[in-house]
Structures are given as structure tokens and as C-alpha cells.
């Protein structure tokens, strides 16, 4: 069964990446990637929600009837989001002030719902938990990379305010790449999000083609 788990990990992180391959969860991707820190925070919050709701749905998958499954999924996700929301408000209040509005919107993010429907409702508990974790981490990585590119080009910094998210120990991550007042402003604005996300999708395709998988193969084992 080891290969099965490897498959799940690889799917989540790269092959079937939520943002760069399936193009799901575009709303938080565009809204929250104005900096690498925001992207990382949003990604981690989503990953926690996905792992927890995948686990719950897999546990109760025999009890959830076909007819009401979507409302049940949404309720489960909403409950998990509320937990994350309150936790962040209590322990990471400064970051919560920045991300707050968008945390609640994880409920309507289509990536958690898609994984519940396509994976957790059919697979064993351990597989589903793994899928939730690694799909979430793949989402986190994509958001952080998009955020980093937009932040470097747009405002000339990288991981600004990272200590708010990760604690004072990570102060060293905060750096200034370009001198003050030299950013390309459009990258911070919404069009920049689409440009960078689109170019990263292209980059992933190029890497996949180089690796000999071919464009058809790259998306072939989506569930």
C-alpha cells in the first residue's frame, strides 16, 4: 500500500495541485496572495480545514446519504472553518486582522468541497486524511509562491510581517529585495494575481513536459 500513499502525496503537492493543475480555489488565490506571508497564512488555514473535514467525511461516509451529501459537506467545512477562525482570532490576532475576512470564505472555497466529493467520500480514513493534508499543503505552497512573486515584484519585499504569523523567531525571513518605492504596482493589484497565477501554471506545464510526461498526461489522473 506504500505506493498508494506516495501517489496521494505526489498528487497533492505537484501532479494534481489544487491551484496549478485543477485551478480550484481561485478566489482566495487572487485575494490573498498580495504577499508571501498572507498566502502562507491562508494556505495553512485552508490545509487545516481540509485535513479535518476530509477526516470527518471519511469517517461518516457510510452514514451520509447521497441526497443530502452536499449540504452535509458544507456544514462540516463551515464548522471546521469556524474553529480555525476563532483559534486565529485568539492566538494570532494581528494576522487575523489581515486575513480575517477571507478565513470565513474558506467555506465557499471549492477545493475542500471538491476533495470531499471526489476523494474523502469514497476512500478509507487514512487515505482521506493524507489527501486533505497534502492537497492543503500543495495549496499552501502554490499560494506562498504566487504571493512571493507578487510581493517581490510589486512591493520589493519578501515575507513582510512573517513574524506576525510564525512568531518572533521567524523575523529573519522578512527581507527587502528591491529599494523602497520601486515596485511594479500592478502586481499587487488584482490583475497581477491573474498574471502570476497564469504564468506559474505555464511554468508547471513546461516542467511537466520537460520531465517527459506530456501535457495530456499531466492532468490525466484527476479523479
Amino acid at each position, binding site marked *: 500500500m506504500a505506493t498508494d500513499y506516495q501517489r496521494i502525496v505526489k498528487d497533492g503537492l505537484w501532479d494534481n495541485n489544487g491551484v496549478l493543475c485543477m485551478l480550484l480555489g481561485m478566489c482566495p488565490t487572487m485575494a490573498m496572495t498580495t504577499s508571501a506571508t498572507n498566502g502562507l497564512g491562508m494556505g495553512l488555514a485552508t490545509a487545516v480545514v481540509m485535513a479535518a473535514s476530509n477526516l470527518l467525511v471519511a469517517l461518516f461516509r457510510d452514514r451520509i446519504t447521497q441526497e443530502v451529501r452536499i449540504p452535509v459537506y458544507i456544514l462540516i467545512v463551515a464548522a471546521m472553518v469556524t474553529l480555525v477562525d476563532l483559534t486565529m482570532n485568539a492566538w494570532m490576532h494581528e494576522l487575523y486582522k489581515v486575513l480575517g475576512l477571507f478565513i470565513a470564505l474558506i467555506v465557499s472555497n471549492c477545493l475542500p468541497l471538491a476533495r470531499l466529493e471526489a476523494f474523502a467520500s469514497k476512500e478509507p480514513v487514512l487515505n482521506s486524511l493524507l489527501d486533505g493534508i497534502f492537497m492543503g499543503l500543495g495549496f499552501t505552497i502554490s499560494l506562498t509562491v504566487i504571493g512571493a512573486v507578487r510581493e517581490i515584484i510589486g512591493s520589493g519585499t519578501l515575507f513582510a510581517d512573517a513574524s506576525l504569523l510564525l512568531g518572533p523567531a521567524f523575523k529573519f525571513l522578512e527581507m527587502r529585495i528591491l529599494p523602497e518605492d520601486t515596485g*511594479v*504596482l*500592478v*502586481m499587487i*493589484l488584482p*490583475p497581477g494575481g491573474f*498574471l502570476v497565477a*497564469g504564468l506559474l501554471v505555464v511554468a508547471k506545464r513546461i516542467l511537466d513536459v520537460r520531465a517527459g510526461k506530456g501535457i495530456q498526461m499531466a492532468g490525466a489522473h484527476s479523479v
Partner: protein
Amino acid sequence: MKPGMNPAVAPVAAPHATTANSVGRVMATVMTALLPATLCGFWLFGWPAIYLWIVTVGAAMLGEILCLRLGGRAARPALSDGSAILTGWLLALSLPPWAPWWIGVFGGLFATVMGKQVFGGLGQNLFNPAMAARVALLISFPVQMTAWVAPLPINAAAAPGIIEGLRITLGALSPALDNISSASLLGHVKTELSRGIDLLHLLTAGHAAADSLSGARAGSLGETAAWLIAAGGVLMLFLRIITWQIPIAMLAAVALPAALLHLVDPGRYLDAGSHLLSGGVMLGAFFIATDYVTSPNTPRGQLVFGAGCGLLTYVIRTWSGYPEGVAFAVLLMNSLTPIIDSSFRPRVYGRDRKGVALEPIK
């Protein structure tokens, strides 16, 4: 009939009219029509403007070559049709003439890479590449993109020479800008209105119209010589490169509301003449909105498209935070082009407008 031709498909009834028309030929004609206004701009703004034009056109061509290479296509045939040169040229005409070199490089690359090749190259793009690049530049670098200079003819004593001009374009000589910087008419009007000064006090008699006519005023290359741009446009009309619908509709849609509102309150609204001759209206109406790729195909659709461009330009100029709105207006109408095209279809031959077959004539 050529030897070896299949007689079944060979054209039989002579004589046949042939045409040497091609993309390259159309582009070359448009460039010829642009030439007088460009040369006038070069004369008014001197060497920095010439360098900026070269850099912008070069960057646009470079972007095209890079994308063609990446796509595994031959660069030469696509490049030699001149469309990338024209895109860079139109962009250069819409920039502040003394802008630093990297504005031209960023804009030129953005125009052909993001505005055109990403969609699949010539004929595939949804938005006018030059205007997409101008808007990207305007939101990204608002300071550099609104640093207008007063015209300083190339032969004037104070004008920068060949070397000094190069240093201005390379950004090594920016302090000198402060001495001669100046607001364009539309920008000036917007600032003063927001300070509560009305137009009757602001514009001394004859100031706006007279300056607009001679073209010797602050603005981009393609803004100052409005009459030469219009003359180039009329030339293209006569050569049937463009049709009259888009330019006339756009100019009318700027002039009519301007004239009406000016009549109501001359202290708040500029007159129609100033609106027509300022900013990018002439360049937009004749050279940019008429882009074959991004404008509707049918005459009625073109009228709607032109009127939309003009009206939006006027609305943005008058009530938004930006003093000029041609680029935004053209891009917004570009996005409506598919809808306009499907709503204003020509009547099918032999059918009425609803598509019902006509009664046969007895």
C-alpha cells in the same frame, strides 16, 4: 490557367482582379499615416523622445521574437508583417516623451507578450496590445507616467542634445526635469477643478484652443499633434484601411456630451474643442479603436463600439480620478466586442433581420 492546375477548380472567366494586399501592407500604410505626427512629436520633444520611441519599438519586437521562439515558430515571417513594430509605435506615442528607458522596455514587452502572444499572436488577442500596456504602465508607475514636459523644440538652445538626451532617457539626468515639467491640459484642469478653481478663471482667453491647434503643449507624442494625427486618419479613410464608423462615432460621442455640458456650466466642463484636441482622442479614434482584431466587424456594430469608446472617454475624463480615459475606454469596449459582434449581425442574404426566409418575388 497555370499548367498543372486542376481544370475543375481553376478560375475560368477572365479578367480577374488581383490584389497585392497583405497584413504587412496594411501595417506599412498605417505607419506611413502615423509618420507626420510622430516626426512632429520628435521635433517638439527632442532626442529623449526619439530614444524612447526606439526603445519601445525594440522591446515590442523583442517580446514578439521571444514568444515565437518559445512557441517553436519561425520569428521572421511573423515579425516582418510589422504588427509588433506598429504596436510598439502606438505605445510610444502614448507615453510621456521624456519617460525613462525602462518604461519603454516594460511597456513594449508587456504589449507583445501579455497583450498579444499570450492569446496566440496576431488576430487572436482580445484587447488592444498597445493600450493594455499603457494601462499596465499607468497603474504600475503613476509618477513616471504622468511626468509631462513642456515642448522644447529640438533646435532650441535649451533643448537636450544627442548625448544629453540619451542621459535623460537613461534616467541619469532627472533633476533637470523639474525646471520644465508641466501638466497636460486635461491634468491641469482636473487638478485646478479639485482645488475649487473654476474654468472661467483658469483658462485665459484663447489659451486652450490655440495651443491645441499648434500642438506645442505638454503631452505625449501622439497627443500634441492632434491635427496631424487626424490627417493621417483621413488618409487611411481614403485608402480604405479603415472605415468611417468607428472614428466618427467616437469623436461625436466625445464632442456631443462635452458641448452640451459646456453649454450648461462652462465653469465646470471643458468645451468640445479642447476635449477633441486634447489627450489621446484623435490617436484613439483613428489608430487605436479601429484595430481590426479588437473591434466589431459590422458597420452598425462599429458605430456602437465607437460611440461607447467616446462616451466612456468623456465619462472617465469628467467624473473619475484620472484626467484621461481613452485607454481605459478602448479596453472596456474591446471586452464588449464579442457581444456587439453577436448582437449586430448583418442580414443573411434572402432572409429578413430575424432570419426568416423572404417571400419569393412572383
